Every structure is written in structure tokens, then in C-alpha cells.
């Protein structure tokens, strides 16, 4: 028997391109010197993206003057942090995040249960609808809710006063309630996405066994379903809590006008709203928030250690869903209501706002297309649009490539130093955008003049890559974990060199994960505000910054127009994402 006859066909060699690159790849991957260079390179890149801004924060918090100005080292920044005022800010931050996490979790559990375990009609569509708010840039809904819930001219209050004849406003979004409410619109779909698969994948036998033991539906839910979900729920809740602490848009739009301060807005204000800017205070309190987040993450780590239940079975059928009878229309209505409130209302407000002459005055003779004309002929809009698109395309691609390489090194190789690489890539996970922004602000300002990053698009690009790397590493890690080693070894045994192997694995097999991650990062860049607002300068504004500026000038009409344009982009991308990579959305 001839062995060679049994082999699958060799990958077609492409001599011209691969010979050169292949030799390079072999040199990098196979020789120990090459491996050393590759690791050193990777460590240098990651260090610049995460360790560098972090150490610049530390430096800044200990240095009396702004970047580039001669000064001395002291602890004044930390002295300012340990004041009553800062304590209130800290309590606000934690309190608001708790206040939004708990109801969001309950709502997310309800939605996940409805959409994964009951026979509610049109569950597939509903799932797309209730997760949509997560993909809308928060700055858009913030501005829309600013218009809807404005105590004087907000649409909701106008309608309410028109119906009841009352003169008092129904709601005021510039309040604690407003901040919490706006955060919830993101927390609920975020938590939903994190927990729904756990609901879906659970072996229905575990619940049925309880029923057979005599337990009622409710008792089964309480003592079995919920208990089994507990590790997943705790993990998701803690993540949501962390994001609540990191949140910038909600407290900026609804807290600051009402005098409610949280750490992120405090950092922003001390740099942007005070004269002279309080850099030392900003960096010192940035460190405090980092320590806070580190504690939370450590607590989570301890809590969840060894507490994850494998409840998934390989059974072919989708778990038996609960028959709700007439109640399924109620659950359907509940999901629709959530969609209407979180998407239709704010988007509708933007739509209406974009067509009327003046915000707040909705009469037929005030209809106009002027705002669209103004926006489309505005150089600033087009510059922001170009910058956002450019940064989105390039940033998402580079971040995914970096994440792909880091994940590859940490899961697929035994290289020494891979733990360090993994750790450094994970570091920005804990850093709120605004904190990373401050770190880079210092970091770029201190670079030699020969490296002109400060105030350019490069500054934003590097910050976005840094912010996105943890996500891209996570997505690619789970993708590699699912690929069998055989594929890779088989490819190499059959004569493909390291680079060809990488290429085939990356492109042919891991591309769905790559695409999922890419789209998420693109969304992330499109919505990013907190780091951008610190790092932009004239000429490098992105759309979210353009919106901020217009909003600050009171131009709600043009804000609405740009909001509508961004909304259309969101819908198009989301649609493509759902079409192309339907099944992978849980990989988030």
C-alpha cells in the first residue's frame, strides 16, 4: 500500500509571495532567535498600548504640572482625592452603578427566559429587537432622551401636559433617575447577550427532573433554573457593574447638569472645565478608579472560582420550551414595549427633531429640510465622518490582527513570555476610556517631538486599539480554542510553513470570529466618546466629538440629523452582521 496515495492534496504553493514571506515566517516562528524577536516585538507593542499609559498616569499623579511643563514631584493630587467631595463622587459612582445593575439584571433575566425558554411568538425577531439598543451609540440616545425628557420642552412632558392639562413635568431626565435610566438601556441588552446562551443551553432534563419530583413551575425556577444560572448571572452582573463605573455618557449628559458627579465626569471636568486644568487631580483619581475596579475584578475572580456548572448536553433538540398559552402575547408585548421605549422613542425623537425648524416646537408649518442641507454642506461634519470611518476601518482591522496574534501566542504556543503578553493585552479591560485617555494624553505629550502623535489621528487610533485589544483577544481565543490542533499540525506536516499555516488558520477557519470581533470593534469605535473627547484636536474630530460640540452650542436640530445618519449606519452594519454571521453573535 502506498502511503503517499492516502495523503490529502498538498496546499497549493504560491511560490512568488510565499517563498519570501515564508522564509521570514520560518525565521520568526521556527528559530529561537526569531521567536525571541517576535516576542520582544509583541511585548513592545503591547507595553506601549497598555503599560505605557498606565505608568504615565502614575507619573502624572505624582507630578505637579501638566505634561511638558517643568515641575516637581509631590502627593498633592492624592491629597485632593481624599476629601469629602471626592468621597461623595465615589459613593455616587458606586451607588448609581449598583442602582442600574440590579434592575437591569432582573429585566435581562426575564427577557432571556422569555426568549430562550418559552413559546412566545416571533422570538427570533424579538431577540434582534431587544438587543438593538446595545448597538446604538450612547451619545445618540443620551441626546434623544435629553430632548424627550427635558423638563421644559421635552416631548414626553409636552404630551403629558397636553393630555392632563397639568403644568408640572412628568419626568426630568436631569436627575439620578435619568442617569440610571439611560445606563439601563445599555445594561439590559448587554446582560441579556451575556446570559441568554446559558438559558438556552441548559439541559431541560434538569428542570423536568424537578417537575417529576413534584415541584411546581415556580419552585423549579427558583430552586433549579435560577440556582444553575447563578455563576453566569453573577459574572455578568459584576461585568455590568464595572461598566457602570466606567460609564461616561450617562452621567455627563444627565448627571452633570444636575450637579451629580461621578468619577468619570469628575476626571473630564477637572481637565476640560477648569482653568487651569487639574491634571494632577485627574490622574490621581484615575488611579483610584483603577484600584476600585481591580478590587471588583479580584472579588469576582474569587467568587466564581470553581463555581461554573456544566449543564449543557449534546441533545439534538432545542430545549422544550414552556407553553404559556394566552400569556405568550403578554410576554410578546413586554419585549415589544422594551424595544419601543429604548429604540423607537429616542430614534423617533431624532427623526422628528431633524425635520422641524426649532427643537421643541412641533407644528406643521415648521417642517423643513434645512438642517439636512446644513449638515451635508458642513465641512466639520464631513471631516468627522471621514475620521470616524477611517479610524473605524483601520482601527478595527489592526486591533483584530493584534488580538489574533496575541490569542494565537497565548493559546497555541508554548513560548515563554506568553503569560506576560496575555496579561498586558488584558490590562486595558480594567481601564475606563476616560482613564486611558488621560494616560495617553500624558504619554503622547511626553514623547519626543520627532514622534508627532499628540493631537493627531494617530493618538485616537492608538487609544482605540488599546481599548479594543482585550475584546479582540477574547473573541479570537475562544475561536482558536474551538479549532482542533490536528488541523494545524496536519497542515504543517504536509509541508506548509509557519506563515502559510497561520494564514490558512486565520483566514479559512477563524474568519467568522474575526468578522464578529471586527464588527463589534467598529461599533465600539463609532460610539467611543470618553477617550476621544480628551485626545482629539482641531482636524482630528470624530463624529461623536462633532455631536458633542453641536450639543454644547444648543444645536439640537443638527444633532438630530447627524444622529439619524449614524443610526442608519448602525442599522446597516447590524443587519449585515446578522446576515453574514448569524450564529456567532453569542461569541461576544
Amino acid at each position, binding site marked *: 500500500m502506498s502511503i503517499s496515495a492516502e495523503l490529502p492534496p498538498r496546499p497549493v504553493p504560491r511560490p512568488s509571495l510565499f517563498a519570501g514571506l515564508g522564509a521570514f515566517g520560518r525565521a520568526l516562528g521556527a528559530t529561537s532567535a526569531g521567536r525571541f524577536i517576535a516576542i520582544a516585538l509583541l511585548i513592545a507593542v503591547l507595553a506601549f498600548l497598555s503599560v505605557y499609559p498606565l505608568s504615565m498616569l502614575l507619573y502624572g499623579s505624582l507630578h505637579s504640572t501638566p505634561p511638558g511643563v517643568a515641575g516637581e514631584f509631590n502627593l498633592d493630587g492624592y491629597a485632593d482625592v481624599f476629601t469629602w467631595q471626592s468621597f461623595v463622587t465615589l459613593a455616587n459612582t458606586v451607588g448609581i452603578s449598583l442602582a442600574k445593575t440590579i434592575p437591569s439584571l432582573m429585566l435581562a433575566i426575564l427577557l432571556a427566559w422569555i426568549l430562550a425558554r418559552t413559546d412566545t411568538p416571533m422570538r427570533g425577531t424579538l431577540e434582534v429587537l431587544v438587543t438593538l439598543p446595545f448597538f446604538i451609540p450612547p451619545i445618540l440616545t443620551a441626546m434623544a432622551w435629553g430632548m424627550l425628557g427635558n423638563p421644559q420642552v421635552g416631548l414626553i412632558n409636552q404630551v403629558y401636559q397636553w393630555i392632563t392639562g397639568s403644568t408640572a413635568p412628568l419626568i426630568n431626565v436631569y436627575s439620578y433617575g435619568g442617569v440610571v435610566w439611560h445606563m439601563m438601556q445599555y445594561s439590559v441588552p448587554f446582560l441579556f447577550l451575556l446570559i441568554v446562551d446559558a438559558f438556552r443551553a441548559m*439541559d431541560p*432534563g*434538569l428542570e*423536568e*427532573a*424537578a*417537575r*417529576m*419530583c*413534584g*415541584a*411546581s413551575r415556580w*419552585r423549579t425556577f427558583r*430552586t*433549579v433554573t435560577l*440556582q*444553575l444560572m*447563578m455563576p453566569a448571572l453573577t459574572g455578568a452582573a459584576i461585568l455590568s457593574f464595572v461598566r457602570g463605573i466606567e460609564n461616561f455618557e450617562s452621567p455627563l449628559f444627565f448627571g452633570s447638569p444636575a450637579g451629580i458627579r461621578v468619577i468619570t465626569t469628575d476626571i473630564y471636568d477637572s481637565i476640560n472645565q477648569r482653568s487651569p486644568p487639574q491634571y494632577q487631580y485627574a490622574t490621581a483619581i484615575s488611579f483610584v478608579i483603577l484600584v476600585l475596579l481591580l478590587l471588583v475584578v479580584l472579588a469576582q475572580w474569587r467568587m466564581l472560582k470553581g463555581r461554573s*456548572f*456544566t*449543564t449543557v*448536553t449534546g*441533545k439534538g433538540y432545542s430545549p*422544550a420550551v414552556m407553553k404559556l398559552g394566552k400569556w405568550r402575547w403578554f410576554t410578546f408585548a413586554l419585549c415589544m414595549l422594551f424595544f419601543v421605549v429604548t429604540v423607537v422613542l429616542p430614534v423617533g425623537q431624532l427623526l422628528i427633531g431633524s425635520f422641524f425648524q426649532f427643537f421643541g416646537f412641533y407644528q406643521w408649518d415648521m417642517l423643513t429640510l434645512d438642517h439636512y442641507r446644513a449638515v451635508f454642506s458642513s465641512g466639520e461634519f464631513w471631516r468627522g465622518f471621514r475620521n470616524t470611518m477611517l479610524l473605524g476601518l483601520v482601527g478595527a482591522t489592526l486591533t483584530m490582527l493584534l488580538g489574533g496574534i496575541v490569542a494565537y501566542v497565548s493559546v497555541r504556543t508554548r513560548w515563554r513570555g506568553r503569560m506576560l503578553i496575555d496579561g498586558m493585552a488584558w490590562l486595558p479591560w480594567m481601564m475606563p476610556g476616560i482613564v486611558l485617555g488621560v494616560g495617553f494624553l500624558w504619554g503622547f505629550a511626553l514623547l519626543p517631538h520627532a514622534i508627532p502623535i499628540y493631537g493627531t489621528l494617530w493618538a485616537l487610533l492608538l487609544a482605540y486599539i488599546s481599548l479594543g485589544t482585550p475584546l479582540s483577544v477574547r473573541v479570537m481565543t475562544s475561536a482558536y480554542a474551538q479549532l482542533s490542533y490536528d488541523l494545524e499540525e496536519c497542515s504543517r506536516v504536509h509541508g506548509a510553513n509557519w506563515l502559510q499555516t497561520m494564514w490558512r488558520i486565520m483566514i479559512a477557519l477563524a474568519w467568522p470570529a474575526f468578522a464578529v470581533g471586527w464588527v463589534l470593534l467598529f461599533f465600539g469605535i463609532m460610539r467611543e466618546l470618553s477617550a476621544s473627547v480628551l485626545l482629539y484636536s482641531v482636524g482630528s474630530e470624530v463624529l461623536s466629538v462633532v455631536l458633542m460640540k453641536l450639543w454644547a452650542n444648543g444645536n439640537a436640530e443638527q444633532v438630530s440629523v447627524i444622529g439619524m445618519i449614524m443610526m442608519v449606519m448602525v442599522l446597516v452594519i447590524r443587519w449585515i452582521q446578522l446576515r453574514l454571521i448569524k450564529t456567532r453573535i453569542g461569541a461576544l
Partner: protein
Amino acid sequence: MSNVTLEKVSRSFGDFVAVDSVDLRVEEGEFVTLLGPSGCGKTTTLRMVAGLEQNTGGRISIGNEVVSDAASKFVVPSERRRLGMVFQSYAIWPHMTVFENVAYPLRVRRRPNAEVQDLVMRALRLVEMERFAERPAPALSGGQQQRVAIARALVFEPKVLLLDEPLSNLDAKLRLQMGDEFRSIQKRLGMTSLYVTHDQSEAMALSDRVVVMDRGRIQQIGAPEEIYRRPVNRTVAAFFGTPNLLDASVESCRRIAGGRIQLDVAGQGWRGPCDAAAELTPGQSVTVMVRPEDARIAGPDAVRGEHELQWTGRIAHTIFRGPTRSVFVDTEGGRINVDAPAFGNYAIGDNVNVLVPQSAAWAVIGHKEAA
């Protein structure tokens, strides 16, 4: 009173009929097994008895009390049917200890703590798991999980026990042992049991009666010996073991002593008498089932005895199986598989005779094509 009665019970998923008009009565204390190939509707039937699946037709009663009637849309929910159930995946709750798993049905019934303690330990002793009471459930092997699942199903002394392929996730040796253990517990407690499996040897070893199902329909109900010896049709015949199925046609038919029916049949290159379940008319096509263990190999010059059937052919190949050797003989009527002594002297190409006592040949109606 803990019998289970199914009357014309059906279940369809859309247009697909998974269970088709099943009639079955399980008597008190009886161990009945639903047996059939994967996908034939066994699990669905069991789940309808449990109330986890709704029957779209027919009526189910437990202990003479109707629990589900499709016509009047009457349903008693699972938790009020007082049934014990063992799932294929065991469904042991990983967030509880062994003790808490077994105690769950009692806690649901709000039994006092002392009694719970007592009953749980008794149930665990029954399955020899009392040493593991405080173990967290995920730290159990498959066999141990299975014991816990049985203890949990037994602990509240249900009227009826339902088991869905409880042994299929165990390795072969453990499967035999657990099966025997379970059967002895069941006999001791006198518990009515409805058991689902696709494994014929398991079904035969454990059951009082076996229900053979295929494509949602009951093919035959009977004691294991009867089903093995006297299948009613080709499907049932082919399902047990690896019988030789030989096409033939009826030459004559007569009733003999003891109400048995004997046929004279003729196949390609052979003829002789055999038994059948029903009277058939001459000329009808039948399949004659001959089990390998009933046949023997004789030399080329052998003459058949008075009550034997005979085929002449040559050995095509042999397979050593340990206790026996499978010898395949090509005859005019087709290839015949014979369980011969393991260390007999059989060479490929030898001319031999295959001899079978006529009482071991059993005819069912129809040919291979028709099945």
C-alpha cells in the same frame, strides 16, 4: 393500584407522527420495556406518561385515574402524577450535594427534617451510595450519578417508575451490573416500571414483558422469550440478534398438536417444515428465520435427521468471536451464518451441510423486498 394504561395514545409534531395509536397496559409491579431503534418514539411515549409531553390523541391513566385525555383536553401536570423518573442524562443537579439531590422530592412535599434524613439515607443505602451523601454532585462518576438518580426517583415511594435509557451512558461492564442491581431493587420493592431502551439484550435480561416499537407503532408485545422465538413479522425478527432470514414460499399448512401451526416451505435449493404464528395459504411468500446458534455445520456427506432442515454449500469465511466462531456458508438459498464451536476445523472453500432442527425455524409472512 399502580397500573399504567395507554389507550390509542398518539403524538404528532406537525405532520410527523412520532407515536401512532399506542395501546399498552402495564400491570402493577410489572417491569415493561419499550424497545426499538433510535427515533421510533420510545422517549416520546414515556414522556407522555410523565406529562412532560402532551399526547395529541388518546388517553393515559395511572392507577385507574385518567391523567391525560386528548379528547377532553384534560391534563394532570407532571408534578401531580406522583411518578419517579430516571433521565438518560441522569439530570443530577450540580449545585446540590448527593443528599440534597435525593432529599429534593421530600422537601417539596414538606416532610419533617428527621423523616427526610431517614428516608434519604435509606434510599442511598439501597443504591449503596450512603458513603457519598455529602459529596457535591459534580464529583461523581457516571455510574454513581446513575445510582443517585435512581435513589432520587425512589425516595418518595412513587406509584410508578419511568426510566429513559438509564444505562446507555455507562460502559458495557457497568451496564450489566447496574441493570441486574436495578432489577433486583425493583423486584424487592414491587414497583411498576416502564423502561425505555434501544438495547435488545438489556431489554431481554430485565423485562417481564417487552414492547417492540418501530416508526411510532407497536410491533409486538410479549415475554422476552416469546419475542425472541416467535416474532410476528420481519421487523421484529430482524431486530433481535443477527438471524438468517431466508426467502421461501408455502407449500402446505396444517395445525399440529398443541395448537401450533406447521408449514411446509420450499426455498431455493431446500425445502422442509417449519413453525409459524398464523395459518397461511399455499403459494404465499414467507421469510424463514433461523438463528445462528440453532444451526450446526456437518460434513459434506451428512444426512439430515428426521426433524431437521438442510442446506448444502461451501464455507465463504469465518470470524473468531471468542466463545464461538461465526461460519458463513454460501448456499443456493443465500448466505447462512452459523455459530460453530470456536476451535472447530473450518477451512474456507470446504463443502459442508448446514443442519437446523425444524422446531427452531420460524416463518413470518413476506419477503425481504416487502419489509
